[in-house]
């Protein structure tokens, strides 16, 4: 089937989509957007988190046809959604706080944090931990990721 979806502000069309395939497969395999990662394909690790009509979802748990006509923002499109030059402030905070090691979880975490700070500009530590509980990271022990969220929130507050 043909699936039409707006990805990072641009209308994209994919043909011969198998109705059972995931939005993650559509993004990575058909639309050439490998920034969204595949690490478990069952919604446990959050590496494939994208914004679907503004809400964070695991792209591996969304059937590609469910995204028909809807808006998807991936890690590749975040910088453009902010007014900042270059990186999105959350992306910048991840680099500067040392929240990136191997980086495989990073795209999903960045998308999740962007969503969190849009909803809750000054989250408590408990709110941050709850929001990020669906994103596994095997490298950092999460301490520097918490630092990155604090840094991004503080900068946002002072902007």
């Amino acid at each position: 089937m043909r699936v039409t979806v707006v990805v990072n502000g641009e209308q994209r069309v994919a043909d011969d989509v198998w109705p059972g395939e995931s939005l993650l497969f559509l993004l990575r395999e058909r639309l050439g957007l490998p920034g969204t990662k595949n690490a478990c394909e069952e919604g446990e690790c959050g590496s494939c988190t994208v914004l679907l009509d503004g809400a964070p979802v695991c792209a591996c748990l969304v059937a590609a046809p469910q995204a028909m006509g809807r808006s998807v923002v991936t890690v590749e499109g975040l910088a453009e959604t902010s007014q900042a030059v270059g990186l999105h402030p959350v992306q910048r905070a991840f680099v500067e706080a040392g929240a990136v090691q191997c980086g495989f979880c990073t795209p999903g975490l960045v998308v999740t944090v962007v969503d969190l700070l849009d909803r809750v500009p000054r989250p408590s530590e408990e709110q941050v931990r709850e929001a990020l509980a669906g994103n596994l990271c095997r490298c950092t022990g999460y301490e520097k990721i918490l630092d990155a969220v604090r840094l991004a929130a503080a900068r946002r507050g002072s902007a």
Partner: protein
Amino acid sequence: MTRPAATSSVTSAPTATTTLPRSSTPGGIGESPTRPDGTRKVTGEFAFSSDLWLDEALFGVTLRSPHPRARITGIDISKALATPGVYAVLTHEDVPGLKFYGLDHADQPVLAIDEVRYQGEPVAILAASDPHTARRAVSRIEVGYEVLEPVTDARAVAFDEGVAMLHPAGNLLRHQPVRVGTPDEVEAEVVVVGEYAVGMQDQAFLGPESGLAVPAEDGGIELFIATQWLHTDRGQVARCLGLPEQMVRLTLAGVGGAFGAREDLSMQVHACMLALHTGRPVRMSYSREESFLGHVHRHPAWMRYEHGATAEGRLVYVKASIVLDGGAYASTTSAVVGNAASLGVGPYQVPHVAIDAYGVRTNNPPCGAMRGFGAVQTCFAYESQMDALAARLGIDPVEVRVRNAVAQGSTLATGQVIDAPAPLAEMLRQAAAMPLPPATAPALGALPGGYGNTTHGEGVRRGIGYGVGIKNICFSEGFDDYSTARVRLEVVGGSAVATVHTAAAEVGQGLVTLQQQIARTELGVASVVIKPADTTVGSSGSSSASRQSYMTGGAVKAACEAVRARIARRLNLSTVELAGEVVVGGPALTEVIGDDPIEETVEFRHRPTFPMDPLTGQGATHVQLALCVHRAVVDVDVELGLVKVVELAAVQDVGRIMNRMALEGQIHGGSAQGLGLALLEEIQVRDGLVRNGSFTDYLIPTILDMPPMTLTILEHPDPHAPYGLRGAGEPPTLSSTPAIVAAVRDATGLALRRVPVRPDDIALPRHSHATSPYGV
């Protein structure tokens, strides 16, 4: 391509200085510059091995054995091969060269030959036009199996007769004794005995085994791969393909974590076989379930320890029997046994020792390298014993450790003398003195059970525990351990630019940042380019054993020094100091370099180590030893058996802080993996079958499981190591596990002799008629 200049060789020599000069160049050593790959990793541009793509690339998949042990009676590939979109189906008959591979012994078939020895063993491989077609078609390969009774009890293999032979060389991969003094004759006033077990842990990196193989015009192959050691991959791949090594060219693709699981080959030979057979590029990427079957794990262990001590708590003797389940193939089990034996009493002074460590074959999943490498399992056992000894004597657990702690000049059980600072007593006292978290009831979500809202504080008890670990850094037991670095200094756009080229695998630890820092410090330039790691430069050894800061850091330093010596020669000086892109007291670097770039390639070796005596285990086997101390504070819901780690505090001596931000990330991450082993992580294997190969069922710590971590980092330089640094990635993985379990014991009063500690282990023993089904 320019011919590289001759490689010179350097061996680490002791340095007289114990002061810690800081870099005079911004972004040099001692600072925490941002990662050179950081921006690409946060934007999604960074290409991991599973992100590689070529328009004409086929997709490769693997057919795996569903049985832990069976004879193969036949393989029929005809239906799979006839499927539209399928380009190749290959079996062991199609392996062009050596049909076996392995890190220590080439005993593992590239594709199963006549027999399968573990669940998930690759039997056939298939390439198709796309992943959907490939996965459907592979199920059409028909394999006949005559199922055999699997050998799954490692202790039976080690100690009983009449166990089925799984390999012509026998089922025992290594038995390493350690003998010191007369442990059977000395008298001890107090004796504590304990049996301990450690479950099978998985590295659980997030980036799956994956890569892209591209046939080359010369009949060779280009492989873009996530690995820990490009050159050992290349050697094995070349032998299995029947190609000379120069026709097998590897480039490091983005590595989504490693932790030991990428030391052994996974899909490397398979992808190359399919690419050479079809003449098309082939990409492969494992699913998570397949990944759990597709790499080696941490060895499960069964350990019996007996500690004899004086009434003051000074150790008189330690006797230990350690069995490590190596699974179906050798992998690195022999070296893991060596670590378990040589470090088996921990960082304590013990006059009389009798250790026997065994690594055996079974039909369980193969085990090999994981962060901590044989030192993790014994650390849980010997630290549990130190707590038992303290409890028996009524001595504080920190004090009993202090009374037995090693220090510089101490002799290990192997007879090796610690010839670098090892301030364990000081570290223990610092850990005990760190402020404790408040005892007040925390917020609801922070109680055991979290947002499950299973308690409002009733039945919750707090406990505090300590753990200490000792880990060897770099390769041991006489291995010729070296790393190669090529450094080029040239003028680009009017500025002096250094280019560093090594084959060392950046797996997330930040080695690319450290290489830049070292080049900045040594050459006084701001701009340092890190070339992609590949096999056009000499080997850097593996990104394992916490060795790359020491080894590749040492190689980059040595190559920079060689470049500096060339600059001095150009100026007719004996030495030069470089800073701010000028020769201090002399001309600008750009002037000295001109249009004649300076390039040097250096092989760097650490001082030699020696094998363990096969009968007594004696020998100077390790080049460097590292210590970490953890203190854990836990809240335990004793009714439900749920544990919340409230705080983890760590004290680690790293010799020299090269990059505090990256170092802290290593200690945090290593501690988290130790927490996982203490409370969450186990590949559950029953009758040789993996029962929980998914992230739904194999639990790694989430951000809700991890507590705040407080770190105290000490700098007592190692005079033998570059910059005085000490490898840091593994030690925290050792000590956090026993510290957490000690804290749970403190809260519950239970013996808890097996990790991971499960809710049943805590909740069930409280009911008089119930016993844990998971006894040792």
